């Protein structure tokens, strides 16, 4: 394990019945770094996020956050340590207002009202702050999901396909936002199918297939790797 890794995952495995969703995945993310996680559908990207964030328990392997094993902690303990995430399909508190959504997260972390205001502005939600979350567009709900995670003052942010369904202008804004978050020292693990979007944000990618890593390095090199091409284009 490199000394400056904030998140260090090794040998992570998760099975659902006979299906191996994760099969010995190892990766590291440093503070301020954006690591992209790519791979074909079913390669285990979202499962990796679910296991690292505590939604599922791993069958084997270790998850170290800031040097400390966190694999046995429940979700809220991981969140309080600074591990947070967004969801592929956003999960806001639908009957609460946008502001209340953020108040819930701020009440249980060390952030105050300033943090809520900043997040509303950063994610362009200030104009809908008083609206019920259920009434937002799906792009707004994605930004609310991210705002909810940010208000909890994360040190590691797991971002699951936040680009899907966004138009080009929204994508560009989202890329800038993620870069700004990383610029403030947060480590990001970004699962994404949109390679253009990923190229704009991630300095390094891990390519997964069948629950394990098959490539690690810059995205442009990944595109020339014969094994990666094989996996994406079919054998």
């Amino acid at each position, binding site marked *: 394990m490199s000394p400056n890794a904030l998140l260090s995952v090794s040998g992570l495995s998760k099975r659902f019945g006979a299906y191996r969703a994760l099969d010995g995945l190892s990766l590291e993310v440093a503070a301020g770094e954006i690591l992209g996680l790519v791979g074909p559908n079913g390669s285990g990207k979202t499962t990796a996020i679910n296991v690292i964030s505590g939604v599922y328990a791993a069958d084997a392997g270790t998850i170290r956050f800031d040097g400390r094993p966190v694999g046995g902690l429940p*979700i*809220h303990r991981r969140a309080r340590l600074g591990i947070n995430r967004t969801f592929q399909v956003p*999960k806001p508190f639908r009957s609460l207002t946008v502001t209340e959504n953020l108040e*819930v997260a701020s009440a*249980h972390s060390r952030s105050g009202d300033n943090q809520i205001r900043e997040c509303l502005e950063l994610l362009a939600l200030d104009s809908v702050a008083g609206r019920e979350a259920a009434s937002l567009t799906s792009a707004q709900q994605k930004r609310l999901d991210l705002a909810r995670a940010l208000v909890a003052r994360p040190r590691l942010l797991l971002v699951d396909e936040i680009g899907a369904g966004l138009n080009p202008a929204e994508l560009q804004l989202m890329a800038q936002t993620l870069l700004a978050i990383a610029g403030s020292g947060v480590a990001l693990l970004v699962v994404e199918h949109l390679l253009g979007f990923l190229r704009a944000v991630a300095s390094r990618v891990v390519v997964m297939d069948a629950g394990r890593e098959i490539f690690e390095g810059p995205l442009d090199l990944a595109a020339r790797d014969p094994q990666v091409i094989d996996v994406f284009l079919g054998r």
Partner: protein
Amino acid sequence: MPRGGWYSVGVVLMFAVLPFVYGNHALLFNMMMYLVLAQGINVLFGFTGYLPFGYVGFFGTGAYGTSLAILLLHLPPLPALLVGAAAAMLVGLVLAPLLKLSGAYFAIASLAASEVVYYIVSNPHLTPLTQGPYGISLVQTYNAAQSYAVMVAVLALALGAVVYLRNSNLGLALQAIREEPISAGFAGINVVRERTRAWLLSAALAGLAGGVYAWHVSVFYPKPVFDLSISVFAIVFTLFGGAATLLGPVVGTLLLYGLYNWIGISQPEYFQLVFGIVIVVLVLFLPNGLMSLLRRIRVDVP
């Protein structure tokens, strides 16, 4: 005064004063009892989304816990009520793993659990302890005026609890858990602990209501205090008015229990008909209760 506080004071004062000008004290007492039970359902369903069809189990446990504390421990009624509430919370703690279930599974499991408590309490083999199927007699502590006054206090407590939930981070956290438990976890909320707290608060309210009821009527059989219709009434009153608000369950109880007393006792078949229609209309057109009508015209309902 927090949001809804003055309404609560008004409701409590109304029930404190009404016995001096209105003669049907049994109606007033039962209405208060259902107001407490409806707010207890509200704490659980409105704020966490669990619908406990077996809610009456806590009521019956409170009635028996209080009665047995009076009969066997020879406690005066007030400390005995605390024993009744504690007994209901203990049953709640034992049943807390049911919260892992969701939707209809939870509703049915809680109903089965309340039946289990009923069959234990009414078991003839336990007659030396619980009087089994022969029921309880508390004639030596009977005091209609005092027990009425204590129910007013329990009503104040129930309304106070919901006012607190409507205005606190705990209430917001519970609603977050109801909407998206996983996101609530990532908001730093200990989902299991907060949900269990709401469950135990709800159990304690029903336990207190059951205990005061036992003291007030002083003679009762096990069947009526574990009767499913108590759960159904409290649930329908809450849903009719609007869960997750303070006023919804109050308005629901006053209107529907008022209707029950108006025609339910003299012409029960008409009441069943009206009650049935009300439930169907409610589910079809107003799933969030009467208060959602007010919210639609942008009235801020406490």
